């Protein structure tokens, strides 16, 4: 009777299944982390050390010069001002694009769910259909549209294009999120005399933080990493960071400075990474708790 089950069930520390699982995970982690490791160590070495080969070896002499050069004075085509110009251009493109696209899409999604108008389903279907069209197809028409609007070759053109292309997916996720909220909440707000914007700002937005965070992540990574729209629509002085990175890495003159290239690449990838790390804590659970019973 002594061994009768009692209290918490004992767990085996390492079953064979666990060991398998962990070894696969470790291998996968190494597989993905190795290139990053190589990038970091390479970016911290001087050129003479790199030429010796040994790409896995840690730097004998740590130097931050490649990072400084990548940021401040690497040559992109004719100009040698480093990535900082591109960084600020990317900021100027990303911030307004993210804000405008999310603002428009969330209002779209809200209206599609709660203020159904004649043909709202059709409108939504068209919007979804839009997300299946490869955007290269629209490139030329958009060039003409922005030219006619007189904004081609400016930051406005890129922001405009990013907002348009963000619309289908963002509207979809906002629509689905709002549709899942209890409908009676919306009705209660109407009885309480809140209008279209009152309900949006005071009732729905406070409950929508998680989905706003998702949208921000999607848009920041998408827009920051974009290359095509930047190079087509922005115009030479406004090239985003990705385009400048490309120009640094693919430069044809002189020697290839691997350490500078690695540093530049990591600098460019930094912003989306930071967004991932920071955003985790905004995913609050139970945002609608207490709204409805049971």
């Amino acid at each position, binding site marked *: 009777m002594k061994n009768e089950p009692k209290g918490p069930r004992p767990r085996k520390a390492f079953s064979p299944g666990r060991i398998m699982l962990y070894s696969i995970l470790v291998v996968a982690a190494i597989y993905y982390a190795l290139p990053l490791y190589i990038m970091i160590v390479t970016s911290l070495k001087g050129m003479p050390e790199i030429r010796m080969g040994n790409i896995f070896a840690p730097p004998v002499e740590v130097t931050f010069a490649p990072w400084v050069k990548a940021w401040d004075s690497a040559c992109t085509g004719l100009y040698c001002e480093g990535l900082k110009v591109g960084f600020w251009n990317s900021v100027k493109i990303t911030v307004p694009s993210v804000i405008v696209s999310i603002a428009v899409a969330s209002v779209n999604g809200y209206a599609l769910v709660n203020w159904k108008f004649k043909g709202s389903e059709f409108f939504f279907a068209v919007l979804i259909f839009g997300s299946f069209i490869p955007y290269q197809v629209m490139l030329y028409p958009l060039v003409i549209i922005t030219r006619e609007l007189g904004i081609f070759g400016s930051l406005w053109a890129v922001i405009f294009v990013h907002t348009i292309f963000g619309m289908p997916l963002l509207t979809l996720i906002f629509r689905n999120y709002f549709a899942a909220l*209890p409908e*009676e*909440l919306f*009705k*209660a*707000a*109407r*009885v*309480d*005399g*809140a209008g279209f914007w*009152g309900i949006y700002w*005071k*009732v729905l937005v*406070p*409950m929508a933080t998680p989905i706003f965070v998702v949208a921000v992540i999607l848009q920041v990574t998408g827009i920051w990493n974009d290359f095509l729209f930047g190079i087509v629509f922005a115009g030479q002085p406004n090239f985003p960071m990705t385009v400048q990175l490309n120009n640094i890495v693919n430069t044809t003159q002189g020697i290839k400075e691997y350490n500078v290239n690695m540093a530049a690449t990591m600098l460019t990838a930094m912003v989306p990474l930071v967004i991932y790390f920071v955003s985790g804590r905004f995913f609050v659970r*139970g*945002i*609608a*708790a*207490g*709204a*409805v*019973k*049971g």
Partner: protein
Amino acid sequence: MNSIEIRDLVLRFGKTTVLQDLDLDIEQGEFLVLLGSSGCGKSTLLNCIAGLLEVSEGQIFINGRNVTWEEPKDRGIGMVFQSYALYPQMTVKGNLSFGLKNAGASKEEIEKRIKNASQMLQIENLLQRKPAELSGGQRQRVAIGRALVRDADVFLFDEPLSNLDAKLRTELRVELKQLHKRLQNTMIYVTHDQIEAMTLADRIAIMKNGFIQQLDSPATIYNRPKNKFVAGFIGSPAMNFLEGTLDCTGEPHFVVGEAKIPLAGYEFSQNLEGKTQSSFGIRPEHIVYGEEAQKAPFNAKVTVDVFEPMGSDTQVWAHVEGQNFRFRIDGRDKIANGDEMLIGFDPACASIFHGETEERI
């Protein structure tokens, strides 16, 4: 003047008609309960009155004003929803004041009204909490409070107590009744619960498939149901129905198989002659047994099939002339399956329904 008048209301969702030519007059200060099976259109009717659904046809008047095209906020209503629908990101105070702020009330006015309402509902010490930090009964009170602060002429309740446990339900039911006594507002209250309906209502409207079957005081609905649906719907356990023939050729009586039930004392609603196929309805609680049964105008011998002790009384299932029959006996009486019992009843408390129209005879 009527508080609410509904004229020829029709509501369709696409091709399905949920409410059909509905007419309803509710007096000032009346407590009207809407009762009906699931999906019969109770919430839909409430939403129409609140202005949350656009009517397909017909008119709605509140306090003599045609509000058919008006926004919910301009109708002078307060509504408590089936799920409480509290704003989860606002405190209780925020929930209560939201409507007032939207209406542009002054700060002092808001404070005063919240104080009144929260005192009445005993939620004063909860004002700073979020809905997630409240119990079911407290949320319910906040939901009622939100309707209350707005000083509405008409309150609409959509099954406000449906998800609460039995004890809390009884408590809140009494509170609601007291609230109505104090406020004297018009209230429309949707429920599935017969006891709630019987205890709260001035009048009950029984709905089925978008039609109001009967609109009367609880006593009338219970004692003189207009048709077989209403009779079967109200009362628990449900009314017994014996299928047979109503014979009015001589002294009126009802024939079930071999048995003849004399109908002296039964108040007829229709003048019928000859024989009519019909159902004879008698409530389980109107059936007497033992010595009393001997004295009753009609009695019969039955065999106990099954019995269900419920504490205060025991439900007995038996057959009369081969048809199912239920009645109640005192919980202290000893009984066993297969026992023979003499039961009886007074046909004056019965209800007879026409075999085809199912209307009361």
